[in-house]
C-alpha cells in the first residue's frame, strides 16, 4: 500500500510534534497530565456550556441558619454554603429560568450544629421537603421534571439519607422527593443505598488559606514513610470496638503501632500539615463514613493517599483517575499494609507523586473564595455540563406524577 506523500509528511509532522511536546513536558515540570475516564476534563471551563438558575428562597432556608451558627463556614460541610455564594456571582448563572439547564436550590441542611460542632440531621428531611414544596408551588419548573434537572448540595455523612449512623441511614434511604434530582454529595460508596446513580461526588471542605499557610519548601526531604493522625477506637460511640471504621482503623493500630515506618498516633500536633508534607504515604481510612478530609489534605500536600475503604467512590471519579494517584487497600488486607506499600515499585511511587504535584489536581480539591478556575466549584459545573443535554424522559407530561410526596417516615412529613 503506497501512502501518498502528503500523508507521509503529515504523519511525520504529527510524530515530531508529539515527541516535542512530551519532551518539553518532561523537562519543564515534574508533573503529569491528569485524565480520567471522561477524558482530559479537569481544566475544562464550564462557562458557556451550561446555565444555572438559582432559586430565591426565603432566608430562613439559608441566611438565617448561617447567622445562627457561623461555625458552618469552617467545618467540613461548608461546601453547601460556598456553592451558593459561588453560583450567585458566577457567569453560568442566569436570571431567566426558561433558558436554564440546571436549577439550584440553596438550602443549608447541614448547619444545625451541636455545641461540639457536629451537624444534627434530624430536621434536615423536613427542611428539604419544605423547600421543595415551596419551589413546587411557586415555580413550574419542579413539576415539569419532578426535579430531574434540579441539583442539591447534600454534604452530610451519608448524603441525602440524612443520618449519621449508617444502619439508620440505609434504613431511611435517600429522601423520596430527591429520587430524580442530581445530588452533589461527599459520600460515595458503590452499591450503597445512599449513593444514587448520576450523583456528583465532591471532596469535603478544607480551608484553603489554612493549608496554604502551612506549606514548607519542596526540597524538604520526605522522610516519613506512612503518616496518620486520628482515632483508632471511638470509645464514646463504639465502646465494644469493631463497629467504628468496620474495625479497619483498629487493625491499623494493632498491627503497626510498634512499626518505625508507621508514624501513627491519636495526637493533634500543631505541625500536622507540615508533617504530611514530609511523608510519602498518608493513610485515609474510613471512619463512621468512608470519606474524610484527609484525602484533600493528602492531595494538597503531595502525600500519596492510601485509601482503606471498600467500594468507596472518590470525588470527581470520572475526571480524576484515582487508581493512578492513590493506593487502594482492601479492609481485609490491612494487616499486610506494610508489605503492600513496600512492594510498590519506586517508579510507580514517583509517578503518583508527579500526578499529585499537578496544580490542577490540587486546585480541583479546593473550594477557594473567590472561586478560581479549575477548582471544585468548576468541577461540579463540569460534571453537570457533562450530563447535558437532558434526556427526553426527564420532561414529564403535564399531570404526570412520579414522586410519592407522602413516602418516608411520618416524622418527616411534618412541616418545617
Amino acid at each position, binding site marked *: 500500500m503506497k501512502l501518498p506523500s502528503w500523508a507521509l509528511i503529515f504523519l511525520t509532522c504529527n510524530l515530531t510534534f508529539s515527541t516535542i511536546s512530551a519532551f518539553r513536558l518532561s523537562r519543564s515540570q*515534574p508533573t503529569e497530565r491528569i485524565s480520567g475516564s471522561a477524558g482530559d476534563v479537569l481544566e475544562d471551563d464550564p462557562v458557556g456550556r451550561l446555565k444555572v438558575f438559582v432559586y430565591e428562597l426565603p432566608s430562613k432556608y439559608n441566611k438565617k441558619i448561617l447567622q445562627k451558627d457561623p461555625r458552618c463556614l469552617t467545618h467540613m460541610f461548608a461546601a453547601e454554603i460556598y456553592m451558593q455564594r459561588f453560583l450567585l456571582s458566577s457567569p453560568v448563572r442566569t436570571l431567566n429560568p426558561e433558558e436554564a439547564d440546571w436549577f439550584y436550590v440553596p438550602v443549608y441542611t447541614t448547619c444545625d450544629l451541636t455545641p461540639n460542632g457536629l451537624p444534627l440531621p434530624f430536621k434536615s428531611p423536613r427542611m428539604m421537603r419544605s423547600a421543595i414544596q415551596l419551589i413546587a408551588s411557586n415555580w413550574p419548573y419542579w413539576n415539569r421534571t419532578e426535579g430531574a434537572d434540579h441539583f442539591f448540595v447534600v454534604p452530610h455523612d451519608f448524603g441525602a439519607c440524612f443520618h449519621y449512623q*449508617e*444502619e439508620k441511614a*440505609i*434504613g431511611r434511604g435517600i429522601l423520596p422527593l430527591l429520587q430524580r434530582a442530581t445530588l452533589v454529595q461527599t459520600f460515595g*460508596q*458503590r*452499591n*450503597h*443505598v445512599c449513593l444514587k446513580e448520576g450523583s456528583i461526588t465532591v471532596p469535603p471542605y478544607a480551608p484553603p488559606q489554612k493549608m496554604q499557610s502551612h506549606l514548607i*519548601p*519542596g*526540597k524538604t*526531604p*520526605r*522522610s516519613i*514513610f506512612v503518616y496518620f493522625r486520628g482515632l483508632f477506637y471511638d470509645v464514646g460511640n463504639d465502646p*465494644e*470496638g*469493631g*463497629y467504628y471504621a*468496620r*474495625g479497619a482503623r*483498629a*487493625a491499623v493500630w*494493632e*498491627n*503497626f503501632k*510498634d*512499626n*518505625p*515506618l508507621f508514624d501513627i498516633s491519636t495526637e493533634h500536633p500543631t505541625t500536622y500539615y507540615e508533617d504530611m508534607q514530609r511523608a*510519602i504515604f498518608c493513610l485515609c481510612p474510613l471512619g463512621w463514613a468512608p470519606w474524610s478530609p484527609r484525602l484533600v489534605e493528602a492531595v494538597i500536600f503531595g502525600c500519596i493517599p492510601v485509601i482503606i475503604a*471498600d*467500594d468507596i467512590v472518590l470525588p470527581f471519579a470520572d475526571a480524576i483517575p484515582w487508581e493512578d494517584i492513590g493506593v487502594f487497600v482492601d*479492609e*481485609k488486607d*490491612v*494487616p*499486610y499494609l*506494610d*508489605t503492600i*506499600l*513496600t*512492594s*510498590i515499585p*519506586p517508579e510507580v*511511587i*514517583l509517578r503518583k*507523586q508527579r500526578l499529585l504535584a499537578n496544580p490542577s489536581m490540587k486546585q480541583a480539591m479546593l473550594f477557594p473564595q473567590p472561586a478560581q478556575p479549575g477548582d471544585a466549584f468548576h468541577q461540579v459545573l463540569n460534571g453537570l455540563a457533562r450530563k447535558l443535554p437532558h434526556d427526553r424522559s426527564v420532561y414529564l407530561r403535564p399531570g404526570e406524577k412520579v414522586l410519592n410526596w407522602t413516602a418516608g417516615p411520618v416524622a418527616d412529613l411534618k412541616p418545617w
Partner: protein
Amino acid sequence: MKLSALHQSYLNRRSFRSPLDSSVDTSGKSLLAVFWLVLHCLCCFISLLLGFRFSRLVFFFLFTTPSSTNLYSPPFRPPLKHHHNNIDLNPPSNATEAMIKSSRVVVGRHGILIRPWPHPDPVEVMKAHRIIERVQREQKTVFGVKRSKTVIAVTPTYVRTFQALHLNGVMHSLMLVPYDVVWIVVEAGGVTNETGAIIAKSGLKTIHVGFNQRMPNTWEDRGKVEVLMRLQALRVVKEEKLDGVVMFADDSNMHSMEFFDEIQNVNWFGAVSVGILAHSGNAEEMVMSMDKRREMVVDEEEEERSSSLPIQGPACNGSDKLIGWHVFNTLPYAGKSAVYIDDVAAVLPQKLEWCGFVLNSRLLWDEAESKPEWVKEFGLLNENEGVESPLSLLNDASMVEPLGSCGRQVLLWWLRVEARADSKFPPGWIIDPPLEITVAAKRTPWPDVPPEPPTKKKDQMSLSQGNTVVTIPKQHQQQQQQQQQRASKVRKPKRRSKRSKHEAKPTDTTTQVSSSTKHHQERN
C-alpha cells in the same frame, strides 16, 4: 491447678471457636454463657471420672454444624483484651438484605484483623528505606540544582601534629559532597608522602601541589603564606582550565553539607556567612571569661556583641541587596581585657577570610567568553602588592552575590587549633620502632610525679589501656601536671590534648597566670 489449667484452655478454646459457634447460636448471649458453664462442669466431671483430661473437640464435632459464611469471620484470633475475645457477629439487618442492591460491604460489627506476628519485618523495613531514599533522590533532582557544577576545593596545608585531624575532617566533608569534587591540596614545604597518604584515602580527584616555602611560626605570617598558596592553587585552576566552583576549604574549618548545595547557585563570585570560632582552647575558660566579662562590663552593647558568635560575611539590606560586609571585630581582643586567665589566647581571623568566598573558575581563565568586566585579569595579578582577601581579585566588590539567603545562613565555621610549633608526633601516626623506655603507671595513665630518668629520646605520647606500658615525655608531663593541679582545684579537665599550645612569642600574650609564665620560662 488442674482446674485452672482447664479454665485457661477453656478460655483459649472459647475464643478460638466462638466466632464459629456463636454464629450458630443465634439466641442471646446469656444462654450461650449458661451453655458453656454447663459444658465446662460436665467436662470437669467426666475428666475426674476418667482420671485424665480429654479433648473437648469431641463435643465440638458432636454438636456444632457448619456455620453460615454470610458474615465476616476473622481468620486470626485477636489476642486482645477480653472483650475482643468474644466476637459476636451480628448478621446484617434484614432491612439491608431486603434492599435491591446488596453491597459486599456489610454494616455492623467486624472483627479486628491482626496478623499472627504484628511486628515490623526487617525485610520490609529495608525495602521501605530504599523507597524513601529513592524518593528523596528524586526530590533533590527536582528541587535542587539542574546541572551540578564541579566543586574545586583549595586547601593549603603543611605537615604538623594537627594536620591529620584537620585534613581528615575536610576530606570526609568533601567525600560526602554529592557533586564532582576536585581537591587541590597545596602543601608548604613541598610535597610529602605524609600528606599524600592522607589525601589518597579520599578517593577524590586530587591535585597535590608543593609550595617551596616553609610555614612560619606566627599566625600573621602563616596567614600571608596561606594566601600565596591559595593563589598558587588558583594558578593551577587557570592552567588546567578546571571548570566549576572554586571554594577555599582551609583544613581546620568545618563545612556543612548545605554549603555545597548553596554554592552551586553562584554565577560569578559569591560570599557566604562564616561563623568565627575565635576562641580556640578550653571551653570552660571561655565560659569563665564570659562570666567575668559579664560581671565587669558596664557597656551592655559590647557584652552582647562579644557573647554571641561573631559572623563574617555579606551584609544585606531589606531588599536582599549586598550593601557591605560583616567583619570580625578584633577590638574585644585587643589585649585590654584582663579577662583571660590562661595562656590560651584567641586566634583572630583576618578581616575577611578567604573561606567565605566562592568563585566561578572561569573568572581565572585567560580568555573566558563572558567574563564580566568587573573582574581583574587573574594572570596579571601581582602578589607582591598584597592580596589580602579575594575581593582583591575584583575591580568592583559590589558585584559579589550573597549566598545562603543573603548571608542569614551560616554554612561553615572558621577555626584555628594547632599544637605547639615544636610538638612532635609519630610520622604517619604509626609507632615504629616500638617504645624504648617504659614507666610503670599508677592508677591514672599519667603519673603525678615525673619519672626520674630524662626521657628525651622518644617524645611520643601513647595512651594504653593497660597500666604498664606508658611513655611520658618530660615536657608534656609537666604541663599535664600543671593542668591536673589546676583541674583538681577548679574543675575536671577536658580535652587536654587539644589545648592550643601555640605561642607566637611568650611575651606577646599578656593574659597569663603567674604559674604559666613560670612554666614557659622553664620550657624555654
